[in-house]
């Protein structure tokens, strides 16, 4: 599903590559934790998958498509197969929960009747069926992240990228978010989650890829966060 071959990413302003000759493969339906200190290259990795950035060297493939050779106008199509969740939720504050989710569908031209059908479905799935008409700032952090996950998942992406989705949440709420991500993973969606939260990594026992200064220092199935944290 995701494949990196000898990928190096060098930002012009910095001397050390953000990613240095990284190769890896992530299969369809996997649940992968991406760990490592700040600046280890996690965000760069996610940006490359979304083609927000191009690698300096090497090949990035998503769903068997080589992103290097993909033309600009095909990028939106790529992103429609991927969902994104962030630490800061990134909801539109002037839109209700339902409108936030509908927005993601409207802007990719989904017909209104599809939107009317799938928005309540996905809200029910994330456990917010009663809160469709609330504004984001009337919700708790955990609930806001559920809205963000609903928005990322509503278009049934092949891959869900989560960049520290529990970074702003307390452990109990985080647990709920992880159950939700697990549920999404069980529908066949590949989940890649960058995180610092060792409780979560240790308790889930999924594949762990650790980056250290741009290099893969560990790739372990059913791994833990590891020593020296």
């Amino acid at each position: 599903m995701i494949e990196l071959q000898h990928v190096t990413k060098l930002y012009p302003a910095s001397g050390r590559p953000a990613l240095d000759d990284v190769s890896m493969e992530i299969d369809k339906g996997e649940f992968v934790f991406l760990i490592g200190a700040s600046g280890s290259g996690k965000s760069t990795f996610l940006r490359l998958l979304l083609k927000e950035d191009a690698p300096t060297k090497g090949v990035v493939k998503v769903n068997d498509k080589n992103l290097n050779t993909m033309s600009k106008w095909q990028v939106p199509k790529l992103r429609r197969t991927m969902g994104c969740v962030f630490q800061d939720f990134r909801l539109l504050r002037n839109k209700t929960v339902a409108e936030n989710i509908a927005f993601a569908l409207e802007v990719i031209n989904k017909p209104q009747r599809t939107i009317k059908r799938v928005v309540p479905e996905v809200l029910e799935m994330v456990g917010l069926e009663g809160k469709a008409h609330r504004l984001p700032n009337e919700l708790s952090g955990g609930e806001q992240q559920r809205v963000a996950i609903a928005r990322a998942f509503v278009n049934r992406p092949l891959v869900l990228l989560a960049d520290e989705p529990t970074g702003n949440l307390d452990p109990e709420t985080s647990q709920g978010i992880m159950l939700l991500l697990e549920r999404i993973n069980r529908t066949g969606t590949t989940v890649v989650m960058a995180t610092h939260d060792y409780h979560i990594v240790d308790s889930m026992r999924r594949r762990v890829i650790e980056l250290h200064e741009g290099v893969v220092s560990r790739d372990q199935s059913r791994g833990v966060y590891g020593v020296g944290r």
Partner: protein
Amino acid sequence: MRVNFVLSEVVTGLRRNLTMTVAMILTTGISLGLMGTGLLIANMISDMKDIYYDKIQVSIYLTDDVTEEQRAAIQAKLEASPEVASVIYETKAEAYQRFQEQFSQQPALIENTPQDALPESFRVELVNPERYPVIAQEFPEGQNGVDQVRDEGDFLDRLFSLLNGARNATIAVAVVQALAALLLISNTIQLAAFNRRNETNIMRLVGASRWYTQLPFILEAAVAGLIGSMLAIGGLVVTKLLFVDKTLAGPIRSGIIPPVDWSAIITISPIIAGAGIGLAAVAAYVTLRLYVRL
């Protein structure tokens, strides 16, 4: 394309930066108004050229004591000349009548001019207006009843160079204003894009097409361009009604200045609107491409 979505984004965008939008519309309007004025002057110049150049190119004024024979000889010589396309003879009375028409706005001038002050003349149209010196040579001034040979084209050239200058100055100011308008549009669009960065970021991540993301901004600029061009057209209409039709009524009636027809304004209105909308949209598009990541 979800029309409602795009339109509501456009209206929100224009309302959010109201002061910038007003500035953008006003500069665009002034620029386009001046451009329209320049086009109208250009129209007027070509109308005037038709009026004047068609009439006469060379006038041969006769002395007061010209004899019948001398007059006949001049006429015969002109009619025989291969350089001459047509000849009109104008008596003193006709000259005075034309003078009265031309200066109908200045009755004092007419009153102070004796009926026979204006000389009789031959009005000569040349086959090639630039061959004036040949005619001048054939009719030496002060001989055989010829008082003066005047190249009216020369006077017209000076008149038209004045009008051309006015047109060029108007268009130059229009261009400078247009530059200001384009920069304002660019700034407004950057501001609008900044205000809406949350929306556009999300659109980008969920895979909205570039076009879908950019269209509201481009339309926002185009709508401002449209309003600006309507202001400009309104300005031209008001100028015609209040200035051209009132202040210049006399010279227009006596045929010195051609009137500004509604048809001229109707002809240039789509040009103004097209230029306003087109330039604004292109400026917005270029701004988005160069300065804004969508």
